[in-house]
């Protein structure tokens, strides 16, 4: 007998421990104080299609349940006497497991069906009423932004299929909007459609439509006087802060106020041109291949290979759905790399996360708990990297309460591309009129609509979240990567880009600038379900899609290749030289815009920036015993080992891992090194710097971030002189307004940070090859505003000439001499040491760029000569912390005499914990000591200690003992502090 819908439940066989269920049980106790008697997780599948009872049994046996470890039921519910909470996706959300089930059923039965996955959490406990269970469902088991749930009390379990089908009872239509209206009506249009366009921009658009030439042409094409919704949405996307970086390109009047401030005033025409682009222009490195104009920057590595690099943020979505937000973030930046030049193969991922404090119970209303955000984000990154097969080689986690409402998720990818294929440079895209626009990858749904304008909005509330949050599909993405790279090598396309924010509107619209126009055929786009309006098809940000520019004669080959890889592909438009962005839905024109107006029409913003110097208080009381301070620092979240997170990421896949995030048992690395081309001895070092703690002077924050990133890269063995960097600015709203009275100060902080970025990059001769900004990291609720501290991430990549010569951070052998490189100064402002005792303090690290620019190349050469046995940069927690980490990593004792180091202070606490930039701890073989000193001649290098035969970590100043601890005790503190 055939059914229209059926359901299959799967559970572990009795006696087999389910670690997932054990974890849920522990969290129920942690969050609600109830210790369940039993918790079980049931996987459920609901199938819509003609499946007989026998077939359902067969599917349960062969497809859904493991023959050894699981059992299934196709007739009745498991755990009918428990509270059952069934959690499934909302209609339209990506259901990867459901999609795989559909494929598996096709293999097994040869039938096309619909399949949906859900989870049943079966809880046995004495709950007072279903309200408690509702709280557990809402706060722990489900995320209401993406999922729905149903609670069945004991004895009331139903065995109904859960079928979250999208049924849109809607005939697609292109609307027309009259723009010849008042200012307030213009503003209302922008607001009600979530366009994020300012009044000035709306007026610009209004004026465009009022032009007689525009009117005449529209009349000729059968269009009305107003704008179509497709046009208005495309303009809003193209002009959005997310895509256009209006703040970075604004005209800014900058001034300074405050005691002891010289009161500098200047006019800046575009932060980007003035500070970022100009730095790269001034530096002029021969290995720079492509900067700023593509999805990622490209540098040359050897005569055959280039690398492409890009770092993105995915902040707003990660606040609402941490797992989906982080997952789509990492997959999105992979696509940026796949869409750089003619396409690069992702070979390394980087992620830097900023969270609120894990222990904080009070988060702003409407926000998820920090622990939940952290767990979800880590899982998203794990799936995004591990499943696609890209090693996660470098990252960090920064904790500060300012990130509680708005976590930051930076995701970066390094790609490898041959410099040329068949004589054609791969950095160059080329589009001629007549080439077809072919979309490959996933289908289009309502997901992600307004992502570009949403992240450009002034606030984040959950009201409009439903459509902007989405879940990535790592496996579809992997298939797309495989297919695009094979097509590239076969020469099947002439340009490629990703579909990120703004969807087809952005991808085809931007590529069309190369030919001078395009047509898009919206009715030819593969849809997940019918009922989408034309503008939704154009703007949808459904994931895992790339756009290729394909000469007509190669279309068939592209389609065949797509079939082989199991990837959807469709020709959805054509590149032209008409000067028009011309969108069709069937035979009807639904948008006709001048390319120039679409891309260049947005008016330049004019903004004011005022910097005010603040007075910063140091902490009140500091501990008398420095051993206590060191222990406190090693356990503090920004310093403690991140091993718990790191081990969940795959750092070995692709087989070229050389410097892992953790070496030996637990030694922390300053960055990562991989050999992307197996069989060659060069490697790529990836490192970063991020120091939001110096936010009160963002010029110094930027200098320190660049210095930290360079220091880390050099410590990893990258050659100083063969580095490139990327900037990622995550800022609170820097535009002054009634709700944002200090916007002008935040803008001034942005100006100063960009200036610092410029000065440090130029001093180190390091080109800035790509960057990104995320400008509205604020959260408004009940009249309160929660803003992040301005946060700059600097990522550095560099070439390692021979990976076999690099060193890790751990001390190696008893008797090895230890050197301290660089100068220690009284620079405790913003330090972890002051922070641990509740203060900030004046005197942030000033960064001596000149001194460092002499030290770094010497260290690079010493490493390349194989003279360095261990090297570790000195940063968070100062010299004492870095020294302890070197000893912990090696499982050895070590001693240091501070009076011997290069220093400009004699204060014990400062010598131990000051965070002056430009410093390293190095150990060498006794026999290499002289050679090392010779290689470092003329720099600030002092021999100041040695590796001990016992297990004590000892630091003295002029013979006085300041630190004396057992290395295993320190290791337990540092390694055990952070788990969530």
């Amino acid at each position: 007998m055939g059914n229209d819908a059926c359901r299959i439940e799967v559970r572990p066989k009795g006696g087999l421990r389910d670690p997932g269920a054990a974890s849920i049980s522990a969290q129920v106790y942690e969050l609600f104080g109830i210790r369940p008697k039993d918790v079980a997780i049931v996987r459920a599948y609901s199938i819509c299609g003609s499946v007989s009872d026998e077939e359902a049994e067969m599917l349960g046996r062969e497809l859904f349940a493991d023959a050894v470890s699981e059992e299934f039921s196709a007739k009745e519910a498991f755990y009918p006497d428990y509270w059952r909470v069934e959690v499934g996706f909302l209609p339209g959300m990506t259901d990867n497991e459901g999609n795989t089930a559909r494929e598996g059923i096709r293999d097994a039965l040869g039938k096309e069906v619909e399949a949906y996955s859900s989870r049943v959490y079966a809880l046995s406990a004495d709950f007072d009423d279903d309200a408690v269970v509702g709280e557990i469902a809402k706060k722990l088991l489900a995320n209401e932004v993406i999922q729905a749930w149903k609670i069945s009390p004991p004895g009331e379990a139903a065995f109904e299929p859960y079928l979250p089908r999208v049924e849109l009872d809607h005939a697609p239509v292109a609307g027309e909007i009259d723009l010849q209206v008042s200012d307030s009506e213009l503003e209302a249009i922008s607001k009600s459609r979530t366009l994020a366009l300012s009044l000035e921009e709306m007026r610009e658009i209004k004026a465009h439509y009022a032009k007689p030439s525009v009117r005449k042409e529209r009349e000729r094409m059968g269009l009305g006087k107003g704008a179509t919704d497709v046009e208005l949405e495309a303009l809003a996307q193209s002009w959005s802060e997310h895509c256009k970086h209006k703040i970075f390109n604004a005209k800014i009047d900058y001034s300074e106020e405050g005691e002891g401030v010289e009161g500098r005033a200047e006019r800046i025409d575009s932060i980007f041109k003035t500070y970022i682009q100009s730095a790269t222009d001034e530096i002029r490195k021969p290995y720079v291949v492509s900067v700023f104009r593509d999805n990622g920057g490209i540098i040359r590595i050897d005569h055959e290979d280039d690398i492409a690099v890009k770092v993105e943020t995915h902040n707003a979505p990660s606040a609402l759905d941490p797992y989906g937000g982080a997952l789509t973030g990492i997959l999105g930046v992979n696509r940026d790399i796949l869409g750089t030049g003619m396409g690069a193969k992702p070979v390394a991922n980087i992620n830097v996360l900023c969270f609120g404090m894990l222990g904080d119970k009070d988060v702003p209303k409407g926000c998820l708990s920090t622990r939940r955000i952290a767990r979800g984000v880590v899982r998203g990154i794990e799936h995004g990297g591990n499943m696609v097969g890209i090693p996660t080689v470098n990252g960090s986690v920064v904790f500060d309460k300012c990130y509680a409402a708005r976590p930051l998720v930076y995701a970066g990818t390094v790609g490898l591309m041959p410099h040329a294929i068949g004589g054609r440079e791969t950095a160059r895209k080329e589009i001629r009129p007549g080439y077809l626009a072919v979309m490959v990858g996933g289908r289009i749904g309502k997901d992600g609509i307004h992502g570009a304008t949403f992240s450009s909005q002034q606030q984040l509330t959950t009201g409009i979240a439903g459509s902007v949050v989405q879940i990535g599909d790592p496996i579809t993405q992997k298939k797309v990567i495989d297919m695009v790279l094979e097509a590239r090598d076969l020469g099947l396309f002439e340009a490629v880009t990703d579909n990120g924010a703004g969807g087809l509107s952005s991808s085809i619209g931007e590529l069309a600038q190369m030919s001078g126009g395009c047509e898009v055929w919206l009715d030819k786009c593969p849809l997940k379900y019918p009922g989408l309006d034309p503008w939704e098809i154009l703007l949808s940000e459904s994931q895992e899609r790339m756009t290729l520019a394909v000469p007509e004669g190669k279309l068939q080959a592209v389609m065949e290749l797509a079939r082989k890889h199991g990837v959807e592909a469709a020709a959805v438009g054509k590149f032209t030289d008409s000067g028009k962005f011309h969108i069709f839905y069937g035979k009807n024109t639904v948008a006709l815009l001048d390319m120039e107006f679409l891309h260049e029409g947005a008016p330049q913003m004019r903004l004011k920036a005022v910097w005010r110097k603040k007075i910063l208080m140091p902490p009140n009381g500091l501990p008398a015993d420095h051993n206590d301070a060191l222990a406190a620092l090693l356990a503090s979240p920004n310093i403690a080992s991140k091993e718990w997170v790191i081990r969940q990421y795959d750092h070995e896949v692709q087989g070229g891992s050389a410097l892992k995030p953790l070496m030996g048992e637990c030694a922390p690395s300053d960055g990562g090194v991989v050999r992307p081309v197996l069989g060659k001895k060069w490697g790529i070092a990836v490192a970063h710097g991020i120091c939001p703690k110096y936010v009160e002077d963002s010029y110094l924050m930027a200098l320190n971030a660049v210095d930290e990133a360079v220091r880390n890269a050099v410590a990893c063995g990258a050659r100083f002189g063969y580095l490139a960097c990327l900037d990622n600015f995550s800022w609170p709203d820097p535009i002054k307004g009634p709700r944002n009275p200090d916007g002008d100060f935040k803008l001034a902080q942005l100006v100063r940070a960009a200036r610092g970025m410029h000065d440090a990059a130029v001093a180190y001769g390091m080109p800035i090859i790509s960057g990104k900004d995320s400008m509205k990291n604020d959260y408004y609720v009940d009249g309160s505003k929660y803003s992040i501290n301005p946060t700059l991430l600097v990522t550095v990549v560099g070439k390692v000439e021979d990976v076999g010569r690099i060193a890790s951070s751990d001390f190696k052998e008893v008797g090895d001499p230890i050197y301290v490189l660089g100068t220690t100064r009284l620079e405790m402002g913003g330090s972890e040491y002051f922070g641990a005792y509740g203060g900030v303090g004046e005197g942030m690290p000033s960064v001596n760029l000149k001194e460092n620019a002499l030290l770094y190349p010497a260290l690079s050469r010493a490493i390349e000569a194989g003279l360095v046995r261990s090297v570790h940069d000195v940063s968070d927690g100062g010299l004492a912390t870095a020294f302890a980490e070197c000893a912990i990593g090696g499982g050895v004792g070590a001693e240091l005499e501070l009076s011997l180091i290069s220093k400009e202070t004699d204060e014990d606490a400062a010598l131990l914990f000051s965070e002056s930039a430009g410093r390293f701890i190095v150990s060498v073989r006794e026999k290499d000591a002289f050679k090392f000193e010779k290689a470092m001649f003329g720099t600030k290098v002092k021999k100041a200690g040695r590796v001990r035969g016992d297990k004590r970590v000892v630091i003295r100043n002029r013979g006085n003992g300041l630190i004396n601890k057992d290395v295993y005790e320190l290791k337990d503190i540092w390694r055990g502090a952070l788990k969530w």
Partner: protein
Amino acid sequence: MVRASAMVLDGYGINCPYETAYAVRASGGEAKIVHVGELIASPKILEEYNLLILPGGFSFGDDLGSARVLANRLRHGAGEALRGFIGSGKLVMGICNGFQALVKMGLLPVPDFRQRVTLTYNSSGKFEDRWVRLAINGKSPCVFTKGIEFLDLPVRHGEGRFVPSGKEVVEEMLGKNLIACQYIGPGGDVNTYPYNPNGSVGGIAGICDESGRVFGLMPHPEAYNHFTNHPLWTRNGGKGGEGLRMFRNAIGHIESCL
């Protein structure tokens, strides 16, 4: 002499074919990366090879259980070809996700398409990346592990806990020395976390069939293809890519026995 020629499967989320093919070539064999779809479309192409490798990855996202859908697809689409391949004395190796597929297809520990053992969620409940030490069973008929006593390799999986369907399966495996390698701790113990990274019964990391020519393991030998892969290489100078020994063994067997 027969030249060793490996088909390295790819596609649908398999994600280690590049380094696996490299490992074969660096060990003296030929390797071709072939999409699973191509094999299903014409299973006969398998005859051109004498070594089939199912590399690591997350085929079909491990939805419905690791490698479950890949196992079904291969069994439905190329089952007969696989039977013939194994029957003619050729070699099959499954690494990580590929091992899961072999087990779930019912090709290990007995290649008769009946599942007897499984690999399920790690006891820790987490995906973990860490290096482990393997103790090799010198009495095992496994051709891949010949002459190796201990081997350090990375594991990178969330579903590697080896669970047999019953006592008799374990007894058969013990009796025939089908347990080719086990995780081992510093004291020789096979059950202590994290040396046994996933809670596998008896520390089982890899098994073979009675002929020793079908072999699967959770750790990744292809990821130890160079001395700089080992996490201790910056301390002890490192040894060559020791993971390649398994590939060299396979190639040696093909060259001398086929």
